[in-house]
């Protein structure tokens, strides 16, 4: 019987990549004085990758992780100090492993970039443990070495008697794999006891009837040996004892004698890939051509791998890890919903007017259940933003070395939750902002000291919830952005005409216009003038916005505002004439009663409202949208001051209705997108209501202003 392991590959890849992320993070946290737990975590991650890859026969990966583990082990024991060199090497290995795993996942071979690293590891590890280090050595651990060691009778051997229960294979444990792991510690001799194997007719291929006597020539302690058998401890009889080499030879001879007819075939050579099941067959049918069997299997596997590669690409689907508590909440809620439903249906079966109160309370319960259910379903898609933040420390570390800057990265609010889709798309813009801050923002240590700051720059990432938004701040204490330079540059590039007066924040936002880069030297890190505009576009596509605040000499803060989810929006319902629209709650600054006295008219009869020191253009939706009915209120009503992308407009509305969460539906599914409308939603009464797009509306307002100006001129 052959278990199809490929079905587990996806899980293995996911877990391994996750493990690599953990390793990376912990490595970055690794300081010289850090405690053992840090290294332990790294070690555990490496260990499970090694175990997994060995199980699935990704030999390059398991060999490589093994070398890694050897080094980590030394660090764990305290035998090797944590140096930048070692951490660098380990980080490079993490990258390398990630590449290998990705390639294997795509159906390619693992590649051989790791061989160079293995060499480096071996050099680092030196001659101190040459028997257990190095991928090459593992593979070549042959009889010669064993024999050579046997002669040294002073040495002690681990004698392990391993008698698994017959169901061991069903638990997913693979003795062969454990032996491989043991072999990593030193020369291993395996002797299989086949005396319990039944006749071929009675043979159940799923049970294991073999027991093993192992001799391990290694200086490791007993715990390490036990660790290998950690998973099977309860499913086997295990005796581990230490004997001298001389004893071992004797006992082995004895055993050889007792199973004289079988022992030649049964001493399993571990470096071949013969499956245990095959071995069983071989021995019981006293196979004549064991090699042929092995070759056949390899061929079959290769073919299968190929066909698997073909359909794998289509089949790989994104998955999400959800905390069990979230799932439990969902189940509870569904339970409540079912109860409410049965209560209501019972009520409906024999309804009379006297039960109207029950009905009302039942319905309100249903409403609450539904809302809670909706919220928790949404929560399933929510992941902590730490997933994105965590890939930044590594980048900061590498970049600061590359740029010769000293940078301290501070991360706050990494547990702030965010929709998975939003998160996937925020990664690149965020990375770019961080690169920019490192490259342009934070100065070189000398410069910093000269301007009276500490040599080490600080880059802070912060995330928090604000209203229905998540706010991500990327701030540095670098040299800041000088609006004047930006202004000049923008004039040079023809983005604006000289002499136009602009508030500083609007000038700063010019750096996010396409084709704008102020870096004097175009560097590898940033400065090709594509980037900030892409950042802005990406974030706008997500329905978010970017603001820049900067004080020359003090630093810069980029504030990204994003909706928590792309599917739901906190809306304010408004009425204009007979139509009900939804305004995104986050865009509303305030609403004021409309009165003609506050309104001035500027160039070309464009009405504006004076709010503090700002003149805000007034948009009348009845005119703008060509609504056929007039507004209910001619000289009264309200003005809703709304903001999008730093531009404010005032909307004339008749009435503010309720606030509610609305599910965003696209108009484009069956129609076209319309400027000024970002989508539609379905209100409680089943009617469609349009969601206003403030950015689009303010664009229309400014286009109209331009037209008016032209007409006047």
């Amino acid at each position, binding site marked *: 019987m052959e278990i199809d392991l490929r079905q587990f590959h996806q899980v293995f890849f996911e877990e391994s990549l996750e493990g690599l992320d953990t390793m990376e993070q912990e490595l970055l946290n690794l300081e010289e004085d850090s405690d053992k737990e840090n290294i332990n975590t790294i070690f555990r991650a490496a260990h499970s990758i090694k175990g997994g890859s060995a199980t699935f026969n990704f030999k390059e990966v398991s060999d490589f992780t093994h070398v890694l583990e050897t080094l980590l082990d030394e660090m764990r024991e305290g035998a090797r100090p944590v140096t930048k060199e070692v951490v660098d090497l380990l980080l490079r290995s993490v990258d390398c492993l990630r590449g290998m795993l990705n390639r294997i996942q795509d159906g390619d071979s693992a590649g051989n970039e790791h061989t160079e690293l293995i060499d480096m590891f071996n050099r680092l590890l030196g001659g101190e443990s040459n028997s257990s280090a190095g991928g090459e050595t593992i593979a070549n651990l042959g009889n010669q070495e064993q024999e050579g060691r046997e002669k040294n009778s002073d040495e002690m051997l681990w004698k392990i008697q391993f008698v698994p229960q017959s169901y061991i294979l069903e638990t997913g444990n693979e003795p062969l794999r454990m032996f491989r792991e043991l072999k990593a510690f030193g020369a291993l001799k395996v002797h299989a006891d086949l005396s319990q194997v039944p006749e071929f007719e009675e043979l159940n291929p799923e049970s294991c009837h073999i027991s093993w006597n192992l001799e391990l020539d290694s200086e490791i302690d007993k715990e390490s040996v036990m660790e290998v058998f950690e998973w099977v401890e309860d499913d086997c009889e295990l005796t581990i004892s230490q004997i001298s080499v001389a004893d071992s030879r004797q006992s082995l001879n004895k055993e050889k004698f007792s199973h004289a007819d079988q022992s030649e075939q049964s001493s399993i050579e571990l470096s071949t890939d013969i499956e245990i099941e095959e071995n069983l067959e071989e021995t019981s049918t006293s196979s004549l051509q064991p090699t042929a069997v092995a070759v056949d299997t390899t061929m079959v596997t290769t073919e299968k791998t190929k066909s698997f590669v073909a359909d794998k690409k289509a089949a790989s689907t994104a998955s999400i890890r959800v905390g069990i508590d979230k799932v439990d909440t969902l189940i509870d809620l569904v339970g409540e919903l079912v109860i409410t439903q049965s209560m209501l249906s019972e009520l409906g079966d024999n309804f009379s007017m006297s039960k109207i109160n029950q009905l009302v309370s039942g319905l309100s319960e249903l409403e609450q259940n539904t809302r809670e259910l909706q919220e928790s379903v949404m929560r399933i898609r929510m992941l902590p933003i730490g997933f994105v933040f965590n890939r930044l420390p590594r980048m900061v570390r590498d970049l600061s070395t590359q740029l010769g800057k000293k940078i301290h990265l501070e991360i706050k609010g990494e547990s702030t939750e965010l929709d998975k889709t939003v998160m996937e798309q925020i990664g690149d813009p965020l990375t770019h902002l961080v690169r920019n801050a490192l490259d342009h923002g934070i100065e070189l240590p000398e410069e910093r000291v000269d301007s009276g700051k500490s040599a080490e720059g600080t880059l802070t990432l912060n995330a928090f919830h604000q209203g229905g938004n998540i706010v991500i701040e990327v701030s540095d204490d670098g040299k800041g952005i000088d609006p004047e330079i930006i202004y000049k540059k923008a004039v040079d590039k023809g983005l604006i005409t000289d002499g136009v007066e602009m508030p500083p924040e609007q000038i700063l936002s010019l750096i996010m216009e396409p084709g704008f880069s102020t870096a004097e030297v175009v560097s590898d890190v940033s400065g090709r003038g594509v980037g900030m505009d892409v950042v802005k576009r990406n974030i706008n596509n997500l329905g978010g916005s970017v603001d820049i605040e900067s004080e020359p000499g003090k630093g810069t803060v980029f504030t990204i505002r994003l909706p928590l989810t792309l599917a739901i929006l906190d809306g304010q319902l408004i009425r204009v004439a007979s*139509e009900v629209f939804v305004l995104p709650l986050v865009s509303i600054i305030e609403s004021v009663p409309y009165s003609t006295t506050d309104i001035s008219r500027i160039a070309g009869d464009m009405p504006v409202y004076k709010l503090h020191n700002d003149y805000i253009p007034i948009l009348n939706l009845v005119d703008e949208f060509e*609504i056929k009915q007039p507004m209910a209120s001619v000289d009264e009503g309200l003005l809703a001051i709304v903001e999008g992308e730093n531009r404010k407009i005032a909307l004339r509305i008749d009435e503010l209705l309720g606030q509610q969460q609305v599910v965003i539906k696209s108009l484009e*599914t069956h*129609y076209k*997108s319309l400027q000024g409308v970002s989508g539609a939603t*379905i209100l409680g009464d089943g009617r469609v209501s349009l969601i206003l797009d403030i950015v689009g509306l303010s664009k229309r307002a400014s286009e109209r202003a331009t037209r008016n100006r032209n007409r006047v001129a």
Partner: protein
Amino acid sequence: MSSEIVQVIQNQEVTYSDTDMMADETGSQYLSFIVGEEEFSVSILKVQEIRAWEVPTFLPNSPGYIKGVLNLRGTIVPVMDLRMRFRFKKVNYNATTVIIILKNRNNGKDCLMGCVVDGVSDVFNLEESEISDVPEYGSDIDSRFTSGIMTVGGNAVTLLNLDNLLKLDLIKHPYSGGQVVNG
């Protein structure tokens, strides 16, 4: 009233599948309906469903014949008034006014459009060969919107060209995104 009509159509469909279908297997089925004082038809395969008239939600800056959008079990479907599209004078909404939800492909994706008509009349079978060309004399209706004439029970019925009639690119909408993005 309108729901009764839907009922009738459904019943007819049932009858067809029971008996007539066998005899007329080669032909295709068409749904005919009344717009103004004329009868029009579309292939029944293009019809998703028929709904009673309800006032749709207004769409900004839309041409007059786009009445707005309505909620079709959670999806937002635009509604076009065929009488206005055909520039008929008399447009009123009464008990027989219905919205026929039609399917059509636009820019590689399936789109739905509700079409307001004065009433549905019949479902019938017809051979492809029984459809004749539209005569070239002056008609109020844009010739791109028709694709043939068929005679049903002595009456002339105009077969509509849905590819053009429902083509979103032919609906002029200022401030529209222009390109329809897939998805």
